[in-house]
């Protein structure tokens, strides 16, 4: 494998509060290589978005990175602040947010927003920036670019807006793109278009993509590797095919079994009892043990397992190693 473009080691985010310190992200490590899509999946409150924000330096105080490091091509960026991180963010790392309407400025034409970003990060003339803006829009499949470049965001449909947001994230030719629920606000047919676009751009431009979503189906179809998060920790990490066919962590298995799937033809859905614990009230031991059907004494009392207990695959004392019968 080539050297990873983005390498995150032991990333921990803390939010100091009146009732003690909360850790929405706790000791998370992963690498993304060029041309690779890492899917990050989990339920609300699992810490997926917080991880993405921490990587790109967008944590809102009082949240802060308290341990671990984020390396971009071997260069630490988690301590970078002010102008320096601003030059990296946008230039070397792009971000795509969930809601395309709120991530575009309604008062500027999309052409202005793109040229502004290009002029900010690349050393080019204004006409050249506009030319590049057109290429960027063309790349993401906006039809009739000459006519649309001077339109305002409200004149675009949701799917087209998300394409503009992707163009905006890619126009400065970044090495890493963090896509936080890029298709959650879109209809399925448009979602398929946007995912196909993301996959194509990732391959063509050799981008390292971190795709954050709650939808296992999207991950299975789009990602190369998948990281499953639970209560701020990495529960499982592996190639997407392996994880989906034989999940090692009972949470991953439960997550997939509770997605309705007619091919299993069951009258009742499998359910994971209870819901994700609140951050201030994490159970001792493995954070998943109160909901787990494979729970043992070790899970309740031993310190929380990390990925190393299952050879870097699942943070579970008793991993499932063969396909559970359905």
């Amino acid at each position, binding site marked *: 494998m080539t050297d990873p473009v983005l390498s995150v080691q032991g990333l921990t985010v803390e939010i100091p509060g009146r009732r003690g310190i909360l850790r929405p992200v706790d000791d998370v490590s992963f690498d993304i290589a060029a041309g690779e899509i890492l899917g990050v999946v989990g339920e609300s409150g699992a810490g997926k978005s917080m991880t993405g924000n921490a990587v790109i330096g967008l944590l809102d105080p009082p949240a802060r990175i308290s341990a671990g490091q984020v390396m971009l091509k071997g260069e630490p960026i988690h301590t970078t602040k002010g102008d320096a991180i601003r030059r990296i963010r946008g230039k070397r790392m792009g971000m795509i947010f969930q809601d395309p309407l709120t991530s575009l400025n309604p008062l500027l034409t999309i052409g202005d927003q793109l040229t502004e970003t290009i002029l900010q990060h690349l050393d080019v003339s204004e006409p050249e920036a506009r030319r590049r803006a057109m290429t960027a829009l063309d790349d993401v499949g906006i039809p009739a670019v000459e006519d649309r470049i001077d339109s305002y965001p409200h004149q675009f449909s949701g799917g087209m807006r998300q394409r503009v947001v992707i163009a905006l994230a890619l126009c400065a030719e970044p090495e890493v793109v963090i896509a936080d629920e890029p298709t959650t606000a879109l*209809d399925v047919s448009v979602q*398929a278009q946007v995912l*196909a676009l993301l996959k194509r751009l990732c391959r063509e431009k050799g981008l390292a993509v971190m795709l954050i979503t709650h939808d296992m189906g*999207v991950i299975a*179809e789009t990602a190369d590797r998948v990281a499953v998060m639970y209560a701020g920790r990495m529960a499982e990490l592996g190639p997407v095919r392996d994880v989906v066919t034989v999940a090692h962590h009972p949470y991953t298995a439960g997550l997939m079994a509770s997605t*309705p799937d*007619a091919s299993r033809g069951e009258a009742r859905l499998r*359910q994971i009892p209870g819901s994700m614990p609140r951050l201030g009230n994490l159970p001792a031991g493995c954070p998943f043990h109160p909901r787990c059907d494979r729970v043992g004494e070790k899970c309740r009392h031993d310190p929380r397992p990390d990925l190393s207990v299952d050879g870097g695959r699942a943070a579970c004392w008793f991993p499932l190693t063969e396909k559970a019968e359905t």
Partner: protein
Amino acid sequence: MSAIVRVRNLSRVFDVSKPWLNRVIERLPKARLRAVDDVSFEIEENACYALVGESGSGKSTIGKMVVGLLPPSQGSVEVMGVDLATEPEGERRVEVRANLQMIFQDPYASLNPRWKVRDIVAEPAVAQGKATDGLAEALLEKVGLSAVDAGKYPHEFSGGQRQRICIARALAGEPKVIICDEPTSALDVSVQSQVLNLMSDLRADLGLSYLFISHDLTVVRHMADTIGVLYLGALIEEAPRDRLFEDPKHPYTQMLFEAAPKMDAFGREIDPPKGEIPNPIDPPSGCPFHPRCPIAVDRCSVDRPELRWIGSTRVACHLAE
């Protein structure tokens, strides 16, 4: 089995014109949006009828008209043989209306934060003038919460628990039909499965009928007996569940199935569907789907296809067979 809800030629037109003065100055005609266009279907007793479609297809508008929150522009909704919009006898209206309840998408917005759960759950019974002693507690236990929860406020519950409270409230009126408008889209999958299982159990125990509105094909496939597919306000295909999924007739239905993410499709390379839902204020002529349809012929842009039967499927397409 007989139909408990009959929807006949239902249409709803919204006036989306600019204000009067703008229209005069800019010489604009009145703009109308046909949100629901001549939709007919029936919900059998103790069955689950699902409406699927993308945003703007009119699914929620139909739900609102069935429950009586919106009057239809044309057509009728009959519940247990009574048309609520035209029934002259007030008592009969109240009696039938009591059999309808609704569960909404967002469990954070549909519970009054200043009311205790007991009062929220019992409200439909209070409105019907029924006894409410211990009712909330019993219903909360029925939906998998505990009786002590009745004294709490909604903010003390998680999303899935709130949706259970919404279900308990819907049950308090002892309805026969529940209209569920995207009941699980705001929930995480592990919680979604809990709520769907609960809804299936209640249907079996209490003999409920559901009108289940959703955009999620996997959920619909799990829950529904019969599925109607909507596009731009019109019903374009309707079939029993298994038949629809095994043999979709309409090109739009086929496109929807193809586009839905699948668990076993690693790195699937598909040609994503072309185009988007057109502007409903200015819909295409002929078949509303023809600009995106891969098999469209000249006739499709002129002639609007009517629903016709092919076996047990009703489909609105000239070319389907």
